[in-house]
């Protein structure tokens, strides 16, 4: 059977493989290569070795912005991971009690997740700026108002998504365990501490890492809500890379090198998650 299927390679494998090479593999490999070059287009390049990687962190117009973007993104990620997961978990706890209207509430909370980042950001930009104008401010008056603006938009968008995952996790907890704990006289906090949270560990891992990578890779909301203002001080990493690449002539190489670093960071997060998940499966 395997032999017969094998003959159909041109039909079953080839279209996907060709598109995969065009849409991913070749751009990726060539992107890694170009990060070691000074270039303006893909055909006009000059090998410069590690220059781009050194330039990224050495003195220059861009380095302060980049270092700022690095810790601004880290802080943003930590804050959104905490807020999204805690609120989503709390909502999920209530929506698994079997109260009337559960389905309707779930529908409402999940809705923002389906709307794209650009569209959502303009909804919030209108709200933020119309409130802030009473104080003669805008959302991009300071890097910190921009920061919390982004936190609100992203939390609003993702809490519903994580809530869905938490609800599924909570519903998977066997009823006997809850009954047994109740019979043993466990209080509400004890139940949470010793039954719900430990049994939800895999779900918590999934949601934490989803929000972690989402925070790190955030682009659309950043572009539409703040555009990096004021003075590129609300740029997250992804937007910083974009601006280096397309906003600064002669810096494309540095932009590509940043992109490689960015990829390594995201890959590291993914590998850590994988390790945690598999180690739990073994144990």
């Amino acid at each position, binding site marked *: 059977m395997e032999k017969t299927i094998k003959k159909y*390679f041109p039909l079953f494998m080839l*279209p996907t493989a060709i598109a995969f090479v065009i849409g991913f593999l*070749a751009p990726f490999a060539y992107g890694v290569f170009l990060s070691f070059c000074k270039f303006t287009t893909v055909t006009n390049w000059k090998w410069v070795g590690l220059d781009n990687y050194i330039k990224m962190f050495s003195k220059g117009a861009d380095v302060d912005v980049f270092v700022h973007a690095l810790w601004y993104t880290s802080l943003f990620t930590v804050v959104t991971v905490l807020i999204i997961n805690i609120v989503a978990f709390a909502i999920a706890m209530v929506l698994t*009690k079997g109260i009337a209207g559960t389905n309707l509430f779930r529908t409402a909370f999940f809705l923002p997740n389906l709307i794209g980042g*650009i*569209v959502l950001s303009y909804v919030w930009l*209108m709200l933020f700026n119309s409130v802030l104008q009473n104080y003669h401010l805008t959302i991009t008056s300071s890097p910190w108002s921009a920061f919390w603006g982004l936190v609100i938009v992203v939390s609003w968008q993702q809490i519903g998504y994580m809530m869905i995952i938490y609800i599924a996790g909570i519903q998977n907890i066997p009823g006997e365990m809850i009954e047994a704990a109740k019979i043993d006289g466990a209080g509400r906090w004890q139940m949470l501490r010793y039954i719900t949270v430990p049994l939800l560990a895999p779900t918590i891992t999934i949601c934490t890492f989803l929000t972690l990578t989402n925070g790190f890779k955030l682009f659309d909301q950043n572009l539409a809500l703040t555009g990096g203002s004021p003075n590129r001080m609300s740029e997250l990493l992804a937007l910083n890379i974009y601006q280096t690449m397309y906003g600064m002539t002669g810096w494309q190489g540095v932009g590509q090198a940043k992109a490689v670093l960015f990829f390594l960071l995201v890959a590291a997060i993914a590998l850590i998650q994988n390790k945690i998940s598999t180690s739990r499966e073994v144990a």
Partner: protein
Amino acid sequence: MSRNTKKSARSESVSAVRRAKHGWIWTLIFAVISLLWISPLLIVLINSFKRKAFIFKNPFSISRYSLFADGFEKWSKGIEKAFFGVQNYTNGIQRTNFWSAFGCSLFITVFSVAAILLFCSMTAWYVVRVKAAYTKLFYVLCLFSMIVPFQMVMFTLSKFANMMHLGNPVGIIVVYLGFGAGLAVFMFTGFVKSISIEIEEAAMIDGCTPVQTFFKVVLPIMKPTVVTVAILEAMWVWNDYLLPYLVLDINKYKTIPIAVQFLKQSHGTIDWGAMMAVLVLAIIPIVILYIFAQKYIIEGVLAGAVKG
């Protein structure tokens, strides 16, 4: 013994009453919270019918007079003044060329997702059934592509696409198939691995070619996964901004997110009247789809999250 049963029965009924009472309070609280949760969207909807000057000044009120302080007459006059029907919509649609953007988004999403579903399900089946080094390598590369952020490939991808003349709604389907293949192949392989090979063998012995076997036997069993992948990829493609912005010939083709973003860029300041209307037009199709396919969307998202 009988006393014990009675007692437990009573305590049960007591706790049931208490639970119901608490439940009622929770329902009330959550009714308020979830209404507040979607209120930004409702505010945009209401403001999309208001005059430009009245939107930004106070998006939370419908009249500049207070019903209680200024009386009903003034208040209702204020409403008349603030609202002016669908003018924002005609303005916004004209400025963004909305229907062409809508058509562009719809075309790209429908055909990219269709291509991803068809080709990646076939590939996944091939990858599982043909055990060879190259199929294993392809699978690993697919997994790998899932963790690569778009910024890593954006420059080279957009330039390659440009060189190959893929900067149109048909060409971009190839790009989406390539960049979306990772997730799709991964999800489909996961499912194919769980199908027992005997059914396919029986079909082949009965004279089916691999093509017939795949489309008549394998694909129908894969239906739940097809729905899941369709939802995940459609949500991605429909809302995607940067990839089409860099790949498409932007002077000719705009998707909805690009058109929305252009409403800001071309004027520096934002025409909030047109913006509100366009936002409503961008959100409404999603809400309608969500109402009808809610079950599938939530299940799909869940399956994708847990596996991904």
